[in-house]
């Protein structure tokens, strides 16, 4: 029996394949190609081989940006801890708890640029925080928060945590609500107090969510851009104090017009994120094997 070629399935596949080809595959291939060229966006690219990669590894600012991006990963455990804590709090059957749940979720549905601008106003020399501190007599002269190199990255990280906590806590809340109540009853009968109950029942029960949140929040931390762009007003902070990998990539491509060099940075970033994705896959595989 001969198999007849049928075009219909391919016709159905075509729109998706075409879209992925144009908006995903082609840009990736183009970035790989540009990473081997000297390209300033307005003139045709010139092939320079591995020149950009050699430059990347000798570039002090690149290493500083990489360090900042790795430091930024600190937000991941903090986010997980605070989000689980918040999920446990809002998982109680209290009066009006749904309102709190909705309020905590507001930053997740707000634009990152809008949030960033609000935070910039908070931390301005004449902003809300300095006004409060001055009126309480804690400081006499306003602190130039965002013009102090050692404070830029912590403020950006704080913003990421504040904006992400509501979103991730919803994921943990869903996980908590899937944990059978009998397990808590058993723990109580065994003499566990509230803290022990969560340590021995909630945390193991939330393991899939912890892995998921850990991976996606660390990938997001590695790719952080909006917070730095807005808080530092496109400068990356004094002495590059807030420059992260993606911000540096953007600066090279669009401020300095070194699109070829920026493409090489993008490929290095891609390699890093691939490592995180592989860790993700391994963790999920191990989790499946444990079941």
């Amino acid at each position, binding site marked *: 029996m001969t198999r007849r070629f049928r075009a219909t399935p391919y016709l159905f596949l075509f729109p998706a394949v075409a879209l992925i080809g144009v908006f995903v595959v082609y840009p990736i291939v183009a970035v790989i190609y540009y990473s081997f060229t000297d390209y300033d966006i307005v003139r045709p690219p010139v092939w320079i081989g591995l020149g950009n990669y050699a430059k990347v590894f000798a570039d002090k600012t690149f290493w500083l940006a990489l360090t900042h991006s790795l430091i930024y990963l600190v937000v991941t455990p903090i986010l997980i801890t605070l989000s689980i804590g918040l999920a446990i709090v809002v998982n109680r059957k209290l009066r009006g708890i749904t309102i709190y749940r909705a309020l905590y*979720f507001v930053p997740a549905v707000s634009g990152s*640029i809008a949030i960033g601008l609000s935070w910039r106003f908070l931390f301005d020399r004449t902003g809300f925080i300095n006004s409060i501190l001055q009126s309480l007599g804690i400081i006499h002269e306003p602190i130039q928060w965002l013009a102090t190199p050692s404070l830029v990255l912590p403020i950006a990280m704080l913003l990421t945590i504040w904006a992400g906590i509501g979103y991730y806590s919803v994921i943990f809340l869903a996980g908590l609500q899937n944990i059978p109540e009998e397990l808590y009853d058993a723990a109580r009968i065994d003499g566990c107090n509230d803290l022990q109950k969560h340590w021995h029942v909630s945390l193991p029960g939330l393991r899939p969510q912890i892995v998921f949140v850990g991976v996606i929040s660390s990938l997001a931390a590695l790719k952080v851009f909006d917070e730095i762009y807005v808080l530092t007003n496109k400068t990356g902070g004094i002495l590059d104090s807030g420059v992260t990998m993606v911000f540096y990539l953007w600066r090279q491509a669009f401020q300095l017009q070194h699109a070829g060099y920026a493409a090489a940075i993008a490929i290095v970033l891609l390699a890093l994120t691939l490592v995180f994705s592989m860790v993700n896959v391994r963790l999920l595989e191990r989790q499946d094997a444990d079941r």
Partner: protein
Amino acid sequence: MKLKRTLTMALATSLLFVACNSAASPSPSSAPPSTPPASTAPASAGTSSAPASVAPSALPVDPAEAVIPNVEANAEITFWTFYLSPTFDQYIKDTIARFEGTYPGVKVTWADHQATFQDDLKNAFAAGNAPDVINLSVSEGWVSDYATKNLLLNLDDKVPQAVKDIYFPGLWKEQLVDGKNYQFPWYQGLNIELINKRLFEKAGLDPANFPKTIDGIPDLCKTLKEKASTVCDIRLTVNDLISQMVYEGNVKPISDDGKTFTFDSPEAVAWLQTYVDMVKAGTVDNTALTTTDDRTGLLLFSAGQAPFYATGPNLIRDVKANNAQLYADLATAPAPLGKSNVTGKGLMSISVKADTKFPNASMALAQFFTNPRSMVAFAKQVSIYPSSPEAFKDPFFSSAPAAIEDSARPLAGGIIATYADIVPTIPKKADVNQIVLKAIESALFGDNPVPAQQALTDAVKQANELIK
């Protein structure tokens, strides 16, 4: 049920708040520009073709304005402006209509681009569909940026001498690349200081005695901090620091043969040391000092939180719109002179794309917008100034100013006549500027600031490596 309703209400309110908040906040792509254009119209880019006929209020067609010969028949050209729509839509449409009447057969399509102007233009050049005629900022060095990449038309070889002579010589010759000019000088600004009289009075200072040279600024800021508890709102031109060094510190940035950077000279160190001392004394706002966004300082000033701010009189209307109380308490003073003794350089220009199909029609449009007649009409709408001596002969410029934003009008012609671009061509300018910025920041900030001399010497070494 009740809870569900409450939750729905809360969510709805939150979403409404978020929606309003997002709408009111500019996205990165609509962030304000780094250069203060004459127009501050907060509008999105608009595209429009010129109207078929001139509006009743528009100037009549005058064949004497046709000064560019051999304009191509039936040319269709595109024109991009920077931040002029919608405030000046009518003026631009009227001028285009008059141009089309003056050069029959030529059709112009106009588009105004705003915060994304530079990105749009680079992408358009990359895609091969850049506009024929382009409004470029001279003050931000855009003309030399594009001209050094051979993207603009060399006007010196194509424009008749009689047309070149229409403009102030200093403006025609500014931003030369390899000795050639690539722009028609368009509207100009005056450098003035906006002064918050209340803060000055609190510090016991008289705005009339504002320093005439930049040497007086550190002492002024010290007094303001001590007596009015405020810090100065000064901005380093972070996109073009070499230029600032040249005008303020009379620094020679590069050797005559253009092969060695020299911005670590005693003049350069003295210039940087002035800022180092002010940062150390805590008399300047560090955020405003190093921002790429010129509007940061203007917003601080408009909010009444800064004692003075250097800008153009055209931006007084921002203060008027944002803070009527401050507008009533506003004084102005000429911007203090730097050690170069040059008052300033041009603001905006119009260039022509190098590979345009219609070079003569494009030059004709660029020239038409910058000619004295068009410029006088423009100056009557907003506090900008023409680029030609002839335009200043119009009685409008000798009439008594009614508002503070026009107070410099009678003196403008004399000041603009002295404008000159004294900064030589800097190879790899953006990269060199980045090196200089980092050097300056390392001298100004951090727990262990680098001495000014060392910071600049290191920067010169790095910059020289770039042009080896």
